[in-house]
């Protein structure tokens, strides 16, 4: 059967991608941020996944407000970087793990999820930036992807528990995928930020560091927080942290936190990442 080799969490702030595009990676403003990802890049290069399942939110690019999917899954063979208003970014197209995507969709519907199944869709910085942070900027990506789009823009957004349960179905899908595929899961978004209202610029460094410390060993409290709790603690846009719960829910109850990194502010966000492995992993 397929192997879940690890779960990573990371911010997907668009300014990170812009910094890479403009060659600012080693400037004093950005170097401490990017350097913190080096251990994760090494982990990824050593562990050689075949498939990266990436959970992120579309930021008003692939979807408009006319029809907002609570949950969407890509089943395509190919995903292009989308024009978000600045022209499409010069990153390579992503190859889709379409067979596994369809298997996952079957499992989702059988397990009472209601996905929007997307054969044609493009991907924004929410997926591009995590891929660049962990895989660099290769000529071609060394993995195929399965994009999972979660609505975190228009209320009602899904509950943290729902995200956890989605992770459990993802885990079952991996376990019932009868191939040698090595699969890594990227939960993305956050950490704390608020972009709207007079509290714009809100950051909660303390809560962010606690998240990075606790999401591995003690995720239950994050699963049982309400959506309002997330907004209050992490800021209105920080509520997208619920997407890391998909990754964490797919992992074992007991995990090892191999690497973590925090840097604030990256643009208007508390940014960072984590690398988790199942404790009983070979």
């Amino acid at each position: 059967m397929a192997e879940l080799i690890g779960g990573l969490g990371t911010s997907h702030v668009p300014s990170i991608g812009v910094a890479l595009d403009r060659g600012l990676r080693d400037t004093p403003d950005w170097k401490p941020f990017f350097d913190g990802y080096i251990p994760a890049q090494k982990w990824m290069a050593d562990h050689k996944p075949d498939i990266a399942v990436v959970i992120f939110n579309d930021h008003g690019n692939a979807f408009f407000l006319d029809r907002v999917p609570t949950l969407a899954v890509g089943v395509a063979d190919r995903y292009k970087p989308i024009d978000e208003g600045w022209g499409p970014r010069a990153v390579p197209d992503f190859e889709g793990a379409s067979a596994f995507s369809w298997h996952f969709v079957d499992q989702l519907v059988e397990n009472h999820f209601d996905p929007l199944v997307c054969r044609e869709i493009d991907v924004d910085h929410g997926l591009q930036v995590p891929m660049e942070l962990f895989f660099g900027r290769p000529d071609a990506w060394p993995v195929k992807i399965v994009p999972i789009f979660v609505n975190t823009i228009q209320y009602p957004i899904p509950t943290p528990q729902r995200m956890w349960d989605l992770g459990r179905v993802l885990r079952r899908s991996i376990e019932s995928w009868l191939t040698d595929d090595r699969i890594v899961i990227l939960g993305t978004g956050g950490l704390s930020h608020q972009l709207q209202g007079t509290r714009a610029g809100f950051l909660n460094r303390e809560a962010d560091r606690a998240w990075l410390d606790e999401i591995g060993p003690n995720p239950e409290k994050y699963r049982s927080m309400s959506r309002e709790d997330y907004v209050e603690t992490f800021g209105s846009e920080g509520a997208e942290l619920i997407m890391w719960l998909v990754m964490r829910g797919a992992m074992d109850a007991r995990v090892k936190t191999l690497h973590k990194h925090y840097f604030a502010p990256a643009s208007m966000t508390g940014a960072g990442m984590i690398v988790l492995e199942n404790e009983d992993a070979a």
Partner: protein
Amino acid sequence: MSDQIPETPLFVRSHGDIGYPLNKMAMSLCQAENREAFKADEEAFLDRYGLSADQKRAVMDRDWEAMVRLGGNLFFILKISAIDPVPITAIGAAQAGMSHDDFVYGRLGKVRHG
């Protein structure tokens, strides 16, 4: 989902209803030809989308605080900021009612370099 966390507008139904024309116009700026049309004649472009008078003025004034207050969702109005362009931190500062420096180095706590 109660809309009652201080200083924190949530993009609930009522915001979406009011802001719909503004957000739809902004979304159209994802296409290069629309960006060109916007730059060529901004008022005519806005008139295609049925914005309210207040929304139209807010866009033409680049009044980010008003745009959000009038139902604009940040991720869509960000595409308007791509036109000039304007950094997202300026949008944040405008909403917080702070100068850009106070916002970035004060509220966000960014460290100044060299």
